[in-house]
């Protein structure tokens, strides 16, 4: 093993960590050179999140050595994690968010003008327009992708030389992601390294130089240039051989029974026979309004929904659920999981509503058990908290809700967000199965590759949120989608 080298901003060697009896990291290695963009890959449960939490000091390691800048006792500010939006104070201005957190002496007077200038300088390194126009705007009023940039500015102003980005593009459009990447490249040229965790292969190839792959808590690929690794080699290293095997060419699913759903609205009129899968593509604004209408969360009167020819108007989600509308969001923490309730309640919650049940009966344990087995969900027990499951497994759990009674209309909002390739395949299979059993599926995703693979028809929304076109089965391609949504490279 090489001695500590000044070229590395971070050297983590033989890191070990276990939680109770489960060892999550067993001798994981990660070395990051100054000014490189480094991808950390691995399946769900490989230990990526745990490793990151150890690197930024949120968790204590059980064993191994960690050197930052060649020193064991690193300055706490050298590594900064860029969280998704959550770490900002929404009511304070952009400038305050950048400078406040780094002032440890609480009694010191805030020299506002001076600090504001520091904040401006930090933000200008990243985005001059934002620095010029939004410095005094409350964070709550700027866009999600702009908040991310504010977080990066904050990290820079505190002297960070390594940024940790966990799934940074999960909520970004293609164009926004591209912008983020170009910023990261610019920072890299100034010696600031980035560790990026993502499940999107295209993206990783576009932005990262080298990668480290974890599998079962061990480093299986250590600092390899991405140009030397094929997609297949990466997938194999992650332990998901077979996941890449293309599904048997997917013929349009023809369900024998089910409900025909039609959707009419500005610029759109589609009729969806049972078993069809309609994709929604584009920036969040447009698709989310249609989805909220479909599930009764927030009705937009521009959209008209009919089931088997009868017009349906859902004032609250309960009505939609009773009419057989199922919903799964990739935003598990916010819109999906009941975290303090056991897995059982999480699975049967929907059937209780749809079936107008009064009793939480004995039968439910069996139903839950069956659902978990059918979806091959690895859980200790149906009485455990859903938080004991990895992110991808939690996502499968949300789908399990709709297995007992197949919904007439299944509405999916980025159901594979933050999920590894292998689990994505499983989720596709589950959804195909539900379609084959008569469900009409409406699926919004920001990943064009997944839409092109699964959908019969795709509605594209442009950046203003209006329908810009319907792409029929024969013409679906990532290029066509990029053109229609304005999110092209």
């Amino acid at each position, binding site marked *: 093993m090489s001695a500590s080298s000044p070229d590395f901003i971070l050297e983590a060697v033989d890191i070990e960590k276990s939680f109770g009896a489960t060892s999550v990291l067993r001798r994981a290695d990660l070395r990051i050179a100054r000014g490189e963009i480094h991808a950390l890959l691995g399946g769900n449960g490989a230990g990526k999140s745990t490793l990151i939490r150890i690197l930024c000091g949120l968790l204590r390691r059980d064993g191994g050595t960690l050197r930052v800048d060649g020193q064991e006792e690193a300055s706490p500010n050298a590594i900064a994690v860029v969280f998704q939006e959550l770490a900002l104070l929404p009511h304070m201005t952009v400038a305050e968010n950048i400078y406040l957190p780094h002032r440890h002496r609480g009694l010191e007077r805030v020299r506002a003008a001076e600090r504001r200038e520091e904040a401006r300088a930090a933000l200008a390194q990243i985005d001059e327009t934002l620095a010029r126009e939004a410095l005094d705007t409350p964070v709550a009023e700027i866009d999600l992708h702009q908040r991310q940039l504010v977080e990066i500015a904050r990290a820079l102003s505190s002297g960070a030389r390594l940024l940790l980005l966990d799934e940074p593009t999960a909520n970004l459009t293609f164009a926004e992601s591209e912008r983020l990447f170009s910023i990261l490249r610019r920072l890299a040229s100034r010696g600031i390294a980035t560790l990026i965790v993502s499940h999107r292969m295209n993206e990783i190839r576009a932005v990262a130089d080298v990668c480290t792959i974890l599998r079962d808590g061990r480093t299986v690929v250590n600092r390899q240039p991405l140009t030397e690794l094929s997609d297949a080699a990466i997938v194999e290293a992650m332990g998901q051989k077979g996941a890449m095997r293309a599904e048997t060419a997917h013929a349009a699913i023809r369900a024998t029974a089910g409900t025909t759903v039609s959707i009419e609205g500005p610029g759109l009129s589609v009729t969806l026979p049972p078993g069809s899968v309609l994709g929604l593509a584009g920036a969040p604004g447009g698709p989310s309004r249609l989805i909220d209408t479909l599930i009764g969360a927030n009705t937009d009167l521009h959209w008209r929904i009919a089931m088997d020819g009868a017009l349906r108007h859902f004032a609250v989600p309960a009505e939609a659920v009773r009419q057989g509308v199922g919903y799964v969001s990739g935003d598990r923490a916010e819109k999906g999981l009941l975290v303090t309730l056991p*897995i059982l309640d999480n699975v049967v919650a929907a059937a209780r509503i749809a079936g107008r049940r009064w009793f939480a009966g004995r039968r439910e344990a069996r139903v839950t058990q069956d659902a978990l087995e059918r979806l091959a969900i690895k859980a200790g027990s149906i009485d455990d908290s859903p938080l004991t499951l990895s992110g991808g497994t939690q996502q499968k759990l949300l789908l399990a809700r709709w297995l007992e009674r197949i919904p007439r209309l299944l509405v999916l909002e980025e159901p594979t967000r933050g999920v590894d390739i292998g689990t994505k395949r499983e989720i596709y299979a589950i959804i195909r199965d539900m379609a084959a059993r008569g469900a009409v599926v409406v699926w919004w995703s920001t990943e064009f590759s997944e839409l092109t693979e699964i959908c019969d028809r795709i509605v594209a929304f442009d950046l203003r949120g209006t329908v810009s076109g319907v792409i029929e089965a024969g013409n679906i391609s990532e290029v066509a989608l990029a053109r229609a949504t304005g999110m092209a490279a």
Partner: protein
Amino acid sequence: MTDTIAGAHRDADSYHAPRRASLGVRLLRSYRTEIAIAVAIILIELVVSLWSPQALSYGNIANIAQASAPLILMSLGVFLVIATSGIDLSVGSTFSLTGMIAGLALSGGMAWPLACFVALGVGLVVGAINGGLVTFVGLAPFVVTLITFAVGGSLAFVVTDGHSIAILDPDFWRLNGGELVPGLANYVLFCIVAVAALEFALRKLVLGRWIYAIGSNDKAARLLGIPVWAVRFGVYAASGLFASFASLISLSYISNSEATSGANMMLQAIAACVIGGASLFGGTGSAIGAMLGAVMITVIQNGVNLIGINSFWQGSVTGLVILIAVLIDRLTKMRA
């Protein structure tokens, strides 16, 4: 054995279906907090009996049961609200106001069962106001119940201009001390029935699961189709009703209405829920836990009296116990 959806089975060999422990083990696990409190209560009693042997006498235990009954009933209602991640600060005022209204009705010659119904109406009205402002107007539970706490507390003085009322009805004691079931005083019976019914509802009725679901993640609960507003409204109404009922049980024993009777009870009821394992963020705890928490608070008060410590220390001891309870809870959860 069920068939797995094609493709959902990534690595068939390594997959094990989740197993379920036996019912006994599951009950032990899900009630471990409650069991720990019950053990702690017994330990406290044993320690107290070192100083004062009558601590374990039948008379003293009956005393504890009598003294804890009103707090138990109030804590059950507060627990329902806390389980939905709300809070009810108004229960103490409701308790006082109910006592005064019941006192007025009884001294005005109303038959006692009828007076009880009127008094329960007080709790229902206050609870409905709380629930209405929280669910329909969308105000924060803390603020809403702070308002009804203040108004209710002052109305308790207003209705009799601050005078206390002695209850002269010769039969009203039956509500508390009578024996609907021979050999079992009503106050014990009511507590047992209320705890058992709530515990059953919370675990075995879909409605009960909804209460936890709302406390766990109200956005997800709404999207699932759970009638969030109706359940929320219901728990505040129930909390008011329980506070009024607690007040009647207490009044039936003490036979004297005072406008300050419930002054300390709101904090004690919240403390009882917290000791019993409820999180103020909602979604956890149990009715049995709230009951045991209330018993523990009473046992501490009783012990402080028996040992002969100045009763001004009661609050400090209770505070210490709450601290210990939440620390133990935190530690066990960190390890899990």
